């Protein structure tokens, strides 16, 4: 076994920025108003309606510029932020090539406005169009748009398109159900509901996925759509999925492939070939775009030509070597967000896809599945660690769900404790599971293609060490973290309105007199 790193997080005891304020300090000054401007229009008071003139200045902090910089740099250092090893399952932690960051910062991308004349946006329109073409090749579908600001937003885009499709056929009032599975990401159920559908959720059966009979029983003339992922977060693949699509199509519904878990199957299968009408890729997961701690992200939404008329507008089109925006789309669902999407992230995904090429994408898929199965050979040897659905034999795809239920039973140590203790060794917390938990004390690591075998071994070594600690000295794990920026949160009822404080002003009001560190 390797020697674990002597990691300790940076601790700055950094006060809140509001607490660093000294009256009169400045981090910014505005340029002087030119005398001609002043002479022509007078002062601001004379130009604004008095009733709406701010009377009292906001209680913002007053700091000098270097102090603001150092404050936020301290906060960045007090964030582990993938500087160690993060195998956060379902999120596909992979390398975000810095060439994408470098180009996003250039004025050719950062300082362009979406309403500029198309002639002045030819470069960015070309890259958006070319990524559309790349994703068409990857999926077999006919058209992609990038307006959705994340995967859930792309699922919502689908639900809105399903709504428009059935309304167009005069069937929306009757077709009010969307079918999904308990292992599909909660956003599928939630966005279907937000778009106005009732949600029918299929539960898992023996094989680790819902049976085709259960789907048949759920489908009816009320079925508007099916929204599913495959493989699921346990690494189990539903081999009947093409049959499912046929069943839903036969009933008049549409089928949406949530490709949240695409890393293990990219280049191995295509949504179109399985019969799907639409799919979604998260560019901030599978296509190398950074996550930013939760966006800006992109849910690339693709569909068949038949549904393309409903796509949110505008759509980027090509005419010879000129690119344009087609905004005149009368059947479009309209917009799910302003403008055409997080364009700088689309460019980063283009760069990633071009750097990888067809070979690289296939290899990334191979390596992510290989690394996951390699992990399993070591993980199942750790006492107390079991694989979900042990009765399902064979290799899993790019991630596997494990249960630490036995560790909890034997020692009282929970997966939350284990997350906290792993962070003491420089490991970003592993993902557990979406609600509801289907196995006790779940963890879901996903190796991906970026992390070296040494990194993966280190991650496993740490889990092994932490489980050993749980058996030898459970209190050490339960009271973790010990090498982090701060200790674990107190068990306070944060859902209590007298306790929660999402702003400093609310906090000061609720705990009057507690302005000094608590």
């Amino acid at each position, binding site marked *: 076994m390797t020697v674990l790193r002597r990691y300790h997080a940076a601790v700055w005891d950094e006060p809140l920025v509001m607490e660093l304020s000294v009256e009169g300090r400045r981090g910014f*000054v505005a340029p002087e108003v030119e005398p001609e401007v002043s002479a022509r229009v007078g002062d601001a008071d004379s130009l604004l309606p008095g009733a709406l003139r701010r009377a009292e200045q906001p209680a913002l902090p007053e700091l000098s510029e270097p102090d603001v910089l150092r404050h936020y740099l301290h906060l960045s250092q007090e964030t582990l932020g993938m500087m160690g090893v993060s195998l956060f399952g379902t999120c596909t932690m992979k390398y975000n090539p810095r060439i994408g960051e470098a180009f996003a910062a250039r004025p050719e991308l950062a300082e362009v406005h979406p309403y500029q004349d198309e002639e002045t946006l030819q470069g960015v329109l070309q890259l958006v169009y070319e990524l559309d073409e790349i994703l068409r090749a990857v999926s077999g579908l006919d058209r992609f748009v990038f307006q959705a600001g994340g995967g859930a937003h792309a699922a919502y885009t689908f639900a809105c398109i399903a709504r428009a499709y059935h309304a167009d056929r005069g069937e929306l009032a009757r077709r009010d159900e969307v079918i999904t599975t308990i292992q599909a990401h909660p956003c599928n159920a939630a966005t279907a509901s937000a778009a106005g559908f009732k949600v029918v959720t299929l539960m898992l059966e023996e094989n680790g996925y819902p049976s085709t009979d259960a789907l048949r029983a759920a489908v009816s003339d009320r079925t508007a759509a099916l929204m599913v992922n495959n493989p699921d977060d346990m690494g189990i693949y539903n081999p009947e999925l093409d049959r499912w699509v046929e069943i839903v199509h036969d009933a008049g519904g549409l089928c949406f492939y949530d490709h949240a878990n695409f890393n293990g199957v990219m280049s191995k299968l295509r949504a179109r070939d399985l019969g799907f009408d639409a799919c979604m890729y998260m560019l901030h997961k599978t296509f190398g775009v950074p996550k930013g701690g939760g966006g800006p992200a992109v849910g690339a939404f693709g569909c068949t030509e038949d549904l393309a008329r409903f796509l949110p507008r505008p759509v980027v089109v090509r005419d010879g070597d000129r690119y344009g925006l087609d905004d005149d789309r009368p059947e479009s669902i309209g917009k799910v967000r302003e403008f055409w999407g997080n364009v700088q992230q689309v460019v980063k995904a283009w760069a990633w896809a071009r750097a990888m090429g067809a070979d690289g994408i296939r290899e990334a898929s191979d390596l992510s599945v290989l690394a996951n199965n390699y992990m399993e050979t070591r993980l199942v040897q750790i006492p107390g660690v079991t694989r979900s659905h042990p009765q399902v034999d064979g290799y899993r795809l790019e991630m596997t769900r494990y249960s630490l239920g036995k560790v909890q039973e034997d020692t009282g140590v929970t997966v939350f404790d284990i997350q906290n203790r792993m962070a003491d060794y420089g490991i970003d917390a592993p993902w557990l599971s979406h609600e509801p938990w289907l196995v006790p004390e779940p963890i879901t690591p996903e190796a991906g293609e970026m992390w070296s075998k040494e990194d993966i071994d280190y991650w496993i070594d740490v889990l092994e060490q932490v489980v050993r600690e749980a058996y030898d000295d459970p209190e050490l794990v339960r009271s973790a973290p010990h090498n982090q*920026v701060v*200790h674990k949160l107190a068990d306070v009822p944060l859902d209590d309105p007298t306790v929660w404080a999402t*702003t400093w002003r609310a906090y000061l009001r609720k705990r009057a007199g507690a302005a000094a560190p608590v």
Partner: protein
Amino acid sequence: MRTTAHPYMANSVPAIKQEMLDAIGASDVEQLFAQIPERHRLRGDLPLPPALTSEIALHRELRQTLARNETCEENLSFLGAGCWQHHVPAVCDEVVRRSEFVTPVWGTPSSDYGRNQAWFEFCSQLGELLALDFVGLPVYSWGCAAGHAIRMASRMTERRQALVPRSLDPERLAVIRTFCEPRETASHLDLRFVDFDPETGRIDLDDLASKLGDETAAVYFEVPSYLGTIEADAAEIVRLAHEHGAESIAGVDPISLGVLSPPGEYGADIAVGTIQPLGVHMSCGGGAGGFIASRDDERYAREYPTLNLSICDTVVPGERGFGITLFHQTSYGLREDGNDWTGNSTYLWSIAAATYMSLLGPRGFEELGELIVRRSHYAAALLDDLDGVRVVFPNGFFKEFVVNFDDTGKTVADVNRALRTRRIFGGKDLSRDFPELGASALYCVTEVHTKDDIDRLAGALQEVIAE
């Protein structure tokens, strides 16, 4: 077949692959995909363009392609309309490019401590600008924030109609419409439009009063409005809404709040808006970001679809932490029974905005706001002086104003085409969306526009209309 390791993939070395295959007892990688039936499999290579694996080649390709863009730096741009050219302080860029903020997703409250503190500082400072105590973590955009807020109000009041101004940005309106379900669905939401006064551009209070009723869930209005004007009667709009049991939702541009009254002061129940002006580049619209805030009242808090972060204690006395509050009511907690949905959003931009608000401070926002108001009015005055050019709502706007070209005999498209040859991007054309305003355009002037820039615009326009 690749013979060298790929720079992004440490395990693409053949010996490492073999080592892992040996460990799992598989002879080749193909065996690992046995779960996928053959009839699902794609065989053969993806038909993709040739790989640019060397960064040198990739850099060249990107540089040459993006060189086909023209920028608002080399041109003088007066475009705004939901995406604005404000100065982005260099410190904001330095902070949001830190790897610890750029690359991760979630850790623990301890390992994410610094980022959580930055998020809390975003909410806290925005709360000061808005004079509101409850601020959620950001959403995709202003339009999405408005859509969510209208749905919040509908759930709270159990009513299914929202009143919005006729002057609303068509782009934002299209987003809000998507949030309002169509008639066929059980939870349909109806949008009705309140006229604006043709003289002032402000909401017509008589029309508002006549349209308010016991069906009204919310009155949504904006300060400043899309057409740039300022609702001097904001408090009256709120009062009228409350009189009918409706929620009032104010849409605001926070960069205006050094000089304009905060929504908390005129009594708005919910405030929404953009965060892009607060230190985020336009990026062709990719800088969009939105927020939802309200009074810190349980009735509102329980309807948020966002993730929300609270300051709290750790197990060690005197130590501070940050934890997610009201998680259970989100779609992560309740799937289809949660409030709308939540997911990836624009969290990185909240750190840019936190940095921006810390840099500006109270005096910075006031100075910046006054500068923008004075320069934009200077621009309006100069343009209004031109023959045939008229500023439609000449008094009381923030950074945007409507310029009409009817009496020049030219369309906005004509004018903008001619301006572009002079390296000027004219204002957003309003003539299709607001036919009643004739050949009009929305001009935006911010702190980046000097007097000389504005003089240059006026000179160019004078030439253009004489052509």
